């Protein structure tokens, strides 16, 4: 009896960022509100928004510019399809409720655990949604090359502005065979976090390491003090291995930079290039060091990533550190966030970086109203609304109304005040800084062809964790790269 796997997308992490809140944004908010209706006469500083003709140009560092006039979107109806379900799905619905009320549209959100399969079935079967957002930007070009998507250029987006707001790296992910952009960055998540047991750190006087060597030294110190420093857990059903590949990718982007990283996942360098081997071996310095891993490195692939943080909460703690994205707090026991805090992944070879994932919008229906709606959504104001249940009190529209869910910003102009939790205030700032400096990169596994990124790279890493030599693992993955 064939029910489809509900495995869904595991390994998505959400990270909140803080953005800078420019004074001009307040003005932008007024202009945006003004443009919500038909031609308006509210005057503002910079004297832009008298009528809709001529659009809402912004001053420096502002929100996305609409090239051409603001389109009246009231009455537009469509379904937005995405992966988030549960509380995160409710937050999307909450966001849309606010938008619908504000603009007179009638947009519904539908989420599915089985998103990757469903979107493919719908598109191939001829019944795609009007708009969808995907956690896997690699699939965007697949649909675009078949002619199913509408390009951002065709909808009148200002590409240069988007690249400035969301980072060129993310925008480039949506460039397909014809050179046009088909993916619109919306909200990211952040993975480069290390969680630690704060009371023990305080007790033993451990300092938070900022370099890789510092991390290794700290781990050794913990071993000497009788602790197991690290908890790992790679098991994740048919996605087993992804936490490990995240480690390697975080190391790689710091060792070799975003450009090499791009070459790596685009297969402009072979998978078994020496740089990859170096990154893997660097990880091995930590992973295979004696006593560093609770339960032993060879067992890590059998420990569920959801169970992995648990020993941190035992008395005495079974381990003291664990690398994982911000969603891991969902697996903490009650009150866990009071005990376990995070620090950012350290620099490697002196370089910093930021790795994460995110949801990118694809548009199936060519409609200027939809284009306008999306331009709204990626603007700083609406991202601020989506950011937290209340919009932090600074969002002009309020918030999603759904407790416990916060969305990190895909637009560097979103203020960290949009967030309610300290965690996300900090993280949103990290992200907006990374977006602004174009050092934010995507999880490579999501960008490589799925045979590799969600297949042999994961299984290869699992083999490596059980003792297969580095070079052999990398050679196998390289051999599996599809030739077409």
């Amino acid at each position, binding site marked *: *009896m*064939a*029910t*489809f*796997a*509900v*495995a869904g997308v595991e390994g998505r992490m959400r990270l909140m960022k803080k953005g800078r809140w420019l004074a001009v944004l307040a003005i932008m908010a007024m202009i945006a509100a003004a443009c919500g209706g038909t031609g308006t006469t509210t005057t503002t500083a910079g004297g832009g928004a008298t009528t809709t003709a001529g659009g809402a140009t912004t001053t420096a560092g502002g929100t996305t510019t609409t090239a051409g006039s603001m389109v009246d979107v009231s009455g537009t109806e469509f379904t937005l399809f995405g992966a988030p379900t549960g509380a995160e799905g409710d937050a999307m619905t909450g966001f849309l409720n606010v938008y619908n009320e504000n603009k007179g549209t009638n947009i519904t959100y539908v989420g599915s655990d089985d998103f*990757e*399969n469903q979107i*493919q079935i719908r598109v191939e079967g001829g019944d795609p949604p009007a708009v969808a957002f995907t956690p896997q930007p690699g699939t965007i070009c*697949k649909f675009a090359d078949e002619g199913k998507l509408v390009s951002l250029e065709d909808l009148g987006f200002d590409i240069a502005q988007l690249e400035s707001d969301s980072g060129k790296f993310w925008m480039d992910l949506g460039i397909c065979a014809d050179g046009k952009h088909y993916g619109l960055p919306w909200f990211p998540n952040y993975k480069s976090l290390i969680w630690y047991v704060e009371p023990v750190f305080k007790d033993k006087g451990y300092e938070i390491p900022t370099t890789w060597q510092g991390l290794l030294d700290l781990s050794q110190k913990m071993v000497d003090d009788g602790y*197991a420093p690290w908890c790992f857990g790679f098991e994740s*059903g*048919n*996605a*087993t291995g992804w936490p490990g590949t995240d480690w390697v990718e975080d190391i790689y982007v710091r060792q070799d930079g975003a450009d090499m990283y791009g070459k790596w996942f685009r297969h402009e360098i072979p998978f078994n290039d020496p740089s990859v081997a170096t990154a893997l071996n660097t990880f091995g310095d930590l992973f295979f060091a004696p006593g560093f891993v*609770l*339960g*032993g490195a060879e*067992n890590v*692939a*059998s*420990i569920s990533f959801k*169970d992995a943080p*648990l*020993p941190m909460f*035992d008395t005495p703690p*079974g381990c003291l550190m664990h690398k994982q994205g911000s969603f891991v707090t969902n697996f903490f026991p009650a009150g866990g966030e009071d005990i376990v805090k995070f620090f950012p992944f350290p620099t490697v070879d002196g370089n910093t970086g930021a790795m994460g994932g995110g949801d990118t919008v694809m548009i199936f229906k060519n409609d200027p109203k939809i284009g306008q709606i999306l331009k709204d959504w990626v603007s700083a104001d609406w991202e601020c609304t989506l950011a937290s249940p209340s919009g932090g009190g600074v969002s002009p529209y309020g918030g999603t109304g759904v407790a416990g869910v916060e969305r990190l910003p895909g637009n560097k102009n979103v203020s960290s005040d949009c967030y309610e939790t300290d965690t996300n205030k900090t993280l949103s700032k990290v992200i907006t800084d990374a977006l602004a400096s174009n050092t934010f990169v995507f999880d490579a596994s999501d960008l490589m*062809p*799925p*045979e590799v990124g*969600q*297949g042999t790279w994961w*299984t290869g890493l*699992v083999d490596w964790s059980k003792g297969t030599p580095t070079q052999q693992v990398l050679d196998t993955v390289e051999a599996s790269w*599809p030739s*077409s």
Partner: protein
Amino acid sequence: MVTPTLMEPERPGGRPPDTVGEGRAPALLLYLIRLLASLLIPVFTVVVLVVSFNYLRNQNANRLLQVFIAIVVGVVGVWVLYWGMDRFVGVLPERFRAGIRPFIFAGPAAVILTVYLVYPAVNTVIISFMSRNSKEFVGLQNYIDVFTTHDTLVSIRNSILWVVIVPVIVVAIGLGFATLADKLGRRSESVSKSLIFLPMAVSFVGASVVWGFVYSFRPEGFGNQIGILNALVSALGGSPINWLSIQPWNTAFLMVILIWTQVGFAMVILSSAIKSVPAEIIEAARIDGATELQLFWRVVLPSVTSTVIVVWTTVVITVWKLFDIVYVMTGGRDGTSVIAERMVTEFFKNFNFGAGAALAVILFIAVIPVLVINIRRFQAEEAIR
């Protein structure tokens, strides 16, 4: 002693009686009117079906009303359709009737099967000869790839193991349980059968949680064991075992899950069959002094052979198609992959339509021996009849 009484049977002829003394023309006219009238019934039914179909498409209509209408239309509508078609056939000249009737009876099934199964099957075969995005013809390349990739060969080997082992066990346990339960009193039988049937009612998501609680593995230091097996092992002093990682036993552990689910199916059907073995035969054998075991082997089993083969065939096909247990519990890791799971991975995860389709075609071919067995059996049965 009595044949079940039928209502007054229809006239064998069904033709309008020649009104004595009237000319041929009015008789012909009458015949045409009858023809038209009986044609009217299926046509009218189809119209009603279409109209209600359109009503039922409306998403905003009252749900309860829709359910009600759906049931009525679904049941009565289909029945009336058949009845109408049959009336129509009854009006035809006698010599056509016997030839056309089978098509009336089997026709709707054939149409539906063609649209929903034959067309996709043909489509699958076609794209198995095309490239990964189904744009270019590549001939046998996909099949060559399938048979030269180590992972796929592993999955073929595993699938064969599954097919050889699981159906036999399922049938054996199902038959055994049905026989034993038959000896119990009405209430005990009902309860025990329900317990065996319960796993079928647990949806697959529930089953994966259930067996997660059996096979769960946590290394020492990671907290209490929440899986039964490892809890037993720990209690007996051993260290926890990663059940689903040990080859080749992990495949056996996965087989247990499918067996657990399918025995209910086998049991229900075999139980019906056992109960239709005429009691006189059993009685006669008992009088002749047969023991329970002999009774089973010599009397009951031969009578239910055809049903046993039906159940076995069905479970075989289910096993060939099995993928979700492997996909969700291990993702095909550690040597557990099976053909159908690879097919889904290639098709939906790797977007390699050609390879996925080739694996599906392999499944089609693999089922042929089982079909041959069945055909032979039908022929043998009819010879006896």
